[in-house]
């Protein structure tokens, strides 16, 4: 009972966070709210005893993606441009889709229903609970499902992460970065201490413009 109450309260937090994110024009605050959203979601997963999922959500959603979004924000304005026109069609489409999705959930088993197909089917939960200690022998059943029974899926996920990395590197990362003016001066002042490196930096500084251009060309 307290568990259900806790989940309801946390879900309401999620709704409040979402509305806040939609209405905020300050993108920095929106990113922070997104982090809070992820942390609250992680809390819900903990209450539901899905510790592995909660861990991932807290580390990826609340941690890394917040930092990456903040790094992106450092290149743009913090304030969203106000939209001049209002999109009635968009809100109608979103509402209809949302209602359809809610209608779709009506067929789903109730929360925590032990008679749901996923729990009773002999090849899913029952199999993992009864057979994985003999078949895989790893105490954490989530790990044995993810890495052994569903090894293909996890391989696919790793490839997705890899492709995301390649995509971002292709768009942003592959071009040779010109050293910042301030770090360059820092390194120049240390020239005496670090003989070779300093000389190289000085050389780079002297011809940086022409070298960079010729390298790109």
């Amino acid at each position, binding site marked *: 009972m307290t568990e259900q109450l806790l989940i309801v309260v946390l879900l309401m937090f999620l709704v409040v966070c979402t509305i806040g994110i939609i209405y905020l024009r300050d993108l920095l605050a929106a990113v922070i709210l997104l982090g809070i959203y992820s942390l609250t979601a992680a809390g819900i997963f903990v209450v539901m005893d899905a*510790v*592995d999922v*909660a*861990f*991932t959500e807290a*580390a*990826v959603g609340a*941690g*890394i993606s917040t*930092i*990456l979004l903040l*790094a*992106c924000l*450092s*290149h743009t304005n913090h304030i969203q441009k106000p939209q001049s026109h209002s999109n009635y069609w968009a809100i109608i489409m979103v509402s209809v889709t949302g209602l359809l999705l809610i209608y779709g959930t009506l067929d789903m088993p109730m929360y925590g229903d032990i008679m749901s197909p996923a729990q009773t089917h002999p090849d899913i939960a029952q199999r993992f609970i009864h057979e994985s200690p003999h*078949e*895989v*022998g*790893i*105490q*954490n059943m*989530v*790990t*044995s499902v*993810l*890495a*052994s029974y569903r*090894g*293909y899926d*996890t*391989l696919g*996920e*790793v*490839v997705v*992460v*890899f492709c*995301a*990395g*390649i995509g*971002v*590197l292709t*768009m*942003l*990362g592959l071009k040779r*970065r010109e*050293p*910042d003016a*301030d*770090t360059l*001066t*820092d390194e120049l*002042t*240390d020239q005496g201490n670090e003989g070779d490196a300093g000389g190289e930096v000085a050389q780079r500084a002297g011809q940086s413009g022409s070298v960079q251009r010729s390298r790109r060309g």
Partner: protein
Amino acid sequence: MMRRYRQQRHRVLQIVIKLLIPFMMLFALYVQFHGDFGPGGGFQAGVIFAAAFIVHGLIFGVQRTREVISPSVLRVMMASGVLLYALTGVVSMMLGGAFLDYDMLAANPLSGQHWGVFAVELGVGITVTSVMISLFYSFASARN
């Protein structure tokens, strides 16, 4: 002069982060290799390990983090993690099983499974770590 000023600007943060980074890495390794027994695994461990480098980059500047772990090394790591995962499957095929059937990796099926999961999770961890650090480098240093 300039460098000294930059270093002293966040003195407390720099010292605290310097102390924290080894523990973050240790925790990441714990999550990586303790995933068999408790919550955790390659994805979470990779993200936490990357977070140690990202925090270093935030406090000391991306330029200095690039000196610690260079983007070209990260690119090799990105590919090698996926390769380690896929090669585990290929090796198990060569030993007479199906793709990613770890039973064949050792004499005893259970220890074969153990080694297989270990290798696969390590591959996941390596790829996730290097992709996350590369993303941070890209976003943090693409000026203009």
